[in-house]
C-alpha cells in the first residue's frame, strides 16, 4: 500500500469517529505525525474540523429527508438513531440523496426504540417518497387505451406501473402523521402517537407532484400483481380467488379500478407479452 493511500485510509477512519478527537490519544498522536497544525490550531484540532463536519453534514441531510421519523423520535433519540446508523452503515454512494437507503432496515433492528413499528413504517414511507421524487418520468396511460385492448389479448396483457410508484403495507397511518408533524413544525403545537390502523399505501408521483393514497385490499392485490409482472387476466383471477371481489361484481369493480389507476397515473403502459 502506498504512503498516500495509507494516510487517506487512516484519516478517513478518524473522521468517522463519533467522539471528539482532542480527547483521543491515538488520534492526537496520528495527527501530530501526519498534520502540520497552524499558528492557531494544533494538528488534532485541524483534524477535528473535518470530523465534526462529517457528522453535521450527514445527520442534517438525514434530518432533511426524514422529517416524520425525526419528529416521532425527538432530538435525543433521533441523534442516537442516526449516529448509530452512520456508524454501522457508513455512506457509500456518491450522492447524499442515497444516504437514507438503508435506514428503514436499520430502524427495524433497533429494539430500544419506544415505538419500533411506527418508526419503521415512517422510515419506509419517507424512503419511498425519496425514491419516487426523482424516479424516471413517464407519460401516464390514458384510460381509453385500456379499453382498446381486444378481449382476446387480455391473457397476454400486463400493466406496467409508473416507475415513480411504491407500494407499502403499514400498521400505522404514517402519511397522516407525517403531514401533522410537518404542520406542527411550522405552526407549533403537539402531535400524539396514532393508534394502529393497518393500511395499504401507494406512494407516487404524478407529473412532478408527490402524493400518498390508501387503497383497498383488492386494489392492493392487483397492484402487487402488476408490480410482479403478472398478466392482467391472471392477476384478476387471483383477486377473485383470494376473495377480494365476486365474479358477479368483477366487471364493474375492475372498470372502476382501472379508471382510478389511470387517473392517478399509476399505470404507465400495457405490454402484450
Amino acid at each position, binding site marked *: 500500500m502506498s504512503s498516500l493511500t495509507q494516510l487517506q485510509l487512516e*484519516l478517513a477512519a478518524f473522521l468517522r469517529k463519533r467522539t471528539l478527537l482532542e480527547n483521543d490519544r491515538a488520534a492526537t498522536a496520528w495527527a501530530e505525525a501526519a498534520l502540520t497544525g497552524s499558528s492557531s490550531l494544533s494538528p488534532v484540532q485541524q483534524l477535528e474540523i*473535518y470530523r465534526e463536519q462529517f457528522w453535521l453534514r450527514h445527520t442534517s441531510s438525514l434530518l432533511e429527508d426524514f422529517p416524520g421519523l425525526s419528529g416521532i423520535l425527538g432530538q435525543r433519540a433521533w441523534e442516537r438513531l442516526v449516529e448509530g446508523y452512520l456508524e454501522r452503515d457508513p455512506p457509500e454512494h*456518491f450522492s447524499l440523496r442515497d444516504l437514507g437507503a438503508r435506514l428503514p432496515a436499520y430502524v427495524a433492528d433497533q429494539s430500544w426504540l419506544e415505538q419500533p413499528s411506527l418508526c419503521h413504517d415512517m422510515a419506509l414511507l419517507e424512503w419511498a417518497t425519496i425514491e419516487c421524487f426523482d424516479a424516471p418520468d413517464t407519460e401516464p396511460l390514458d384510460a381509453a387505451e385500456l379499453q382498446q385492448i381486444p378481449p382476446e389479448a387480455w391473457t397476454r396483457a400486463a400493466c406496467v406501473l409508473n416507475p415513480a410508484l411504491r407500494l407499502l403495507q403499514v400498521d400505522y397511518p404514517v402519511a397522516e402523521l407525517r403531514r401533522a408533524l410537518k404542520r406542527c413544525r411550522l405552526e407549533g403545537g403537539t402531535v400524539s402517537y396514532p393508534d394502529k390502523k393497518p393500511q395499504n399505501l401507494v406512494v407516487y408521483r404524478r407529473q412532478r407532484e408527490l402524493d400518498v393514497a390508501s387503497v383497498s385490499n383488492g386494489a392492493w392485490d392487483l397492484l402487487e400483481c402488476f408490480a410482479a409482472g403478472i398478466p392482467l387476466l391472471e392477476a384478476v383471477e387471483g383477486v377473485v380467488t383470494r376473495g377480494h371481489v365476486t365474479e358477479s361484481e368483477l366487471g364493474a369493480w375492475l372498470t372502476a379500478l382501472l379508471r382510478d389507476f389511470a387517473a392517478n397515473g399509476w399505470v404507465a403502459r400495457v405490454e402484450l407479452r
Partner: protein
Amino acid sequence: MSPRRVRGSTSRLRVPLLGVGVGLRVPHYAHILRERPRVDFFEIISENFMVDGGKPLYHLDCVLEGYPVIQHGVSLNIGGPDPIDREYLTRLKALVRRVKPAWLSDHFCWSGAGGAHLHDLLPLPYCDEAVARLVERAHMVQDFLEVRFALENTSSYMSYTQSSMTEWQFVSEVVERADIGLMFDVNNVFVSSYNHGFDPLEFVRSVPHERILQIHLAGHTNLGTHIIDTHRGHVHDAVWALYRETLRLAAVPISTLIEWDDEIPEFEVLMAEVERAKREQALALGSPAGAGPELDPSTPELSAGAALGARGWQQGGPRETAAGD
C-alpha cells in the same frame, strides 16, 4: 437574451467566454423561471441532477432553454485511494449529454476511502504521488466525458507533513501535465492563505493564468482561529483584490461565477454581486500593467463565531429533496 450565446473565447483552452454567472440553487428556481433574469450563465452542481427524472431534471431543462449552463462536481473523488466510481462517471456523462456544458469541473481533493464516501472536499498532501494520481485520472476523465475538464483549488483546514511542495506548485503541475483547465477559486486562495499562513498573492501570481477557464467568487466566515469557506454573505474586499490581480495577470476576461450556498438571499442580491464582478473585471483589465492590488491579507473581518450554523460549510447549497413534498 438568446439561448447559449457566448462572447469570444479564452485562449489556449479554446472554451467560450461566458461572462459572469451565478450558481443555480433551489430557492431561486421560481424567480428564474418566472422572471427570466439577464444572467450570462448558470453553474449547476452535477450531483444534484444525476437522477432519473422528476423536478430536478424538469427545472434543469427549463433553465437550459434560456441560458448556457456549466457543470461543477463535488463527488468525483479524483484524489481518493479507490478507483474512480464507474457508475458516477456514467451518470455524469449522461448529464453532460443533456447539458452540453462548455466545460466541467471538480476539485483537487479526495472524498472517500475504503468504500466509504465522506462527502467532503478533503485536501491532498502536495506530493509527487498525489500529482501522478491526479494527472492520470484527470486525463482519463477528460477523455471519457469528451468535454474540457478543470479542477478547482479547495479551501482547506489542515495541511500534511507529507507535502513536499506548495499548493500552487501542486496545482500548476497537475493542470500542465494533465492538460486540463484550472477552475480558480480566489476565495479559496484567501481562506487557505489565512488558515495556513501563506501569501495569497504568491498563489495568484504562480498559477498558469492561461489555463484558468473560470473563476469562483464567494463569501466566507472568519472564526478567528480559522476561516471557513461557508459560501455565505458577500464577497470580501480582500477577495475582490485577488480577483482583480488574477485578471490583471491573465490579461483577458475570464468567465466568473458568484457562489452563495448558505443563508441564500433574494436573487437580486446575487445580481448585485454579478454587477460588481463586471465592474471589477473592467477595472482590472483597464488598469495599467504593473499596478499592484490593494490587498491586505490580514484585514480583520467580522468574526461569526457561534453564529456559524450547524451545517458549517456546504458545497452546492440545499438539495432539492422530497422533504418539502
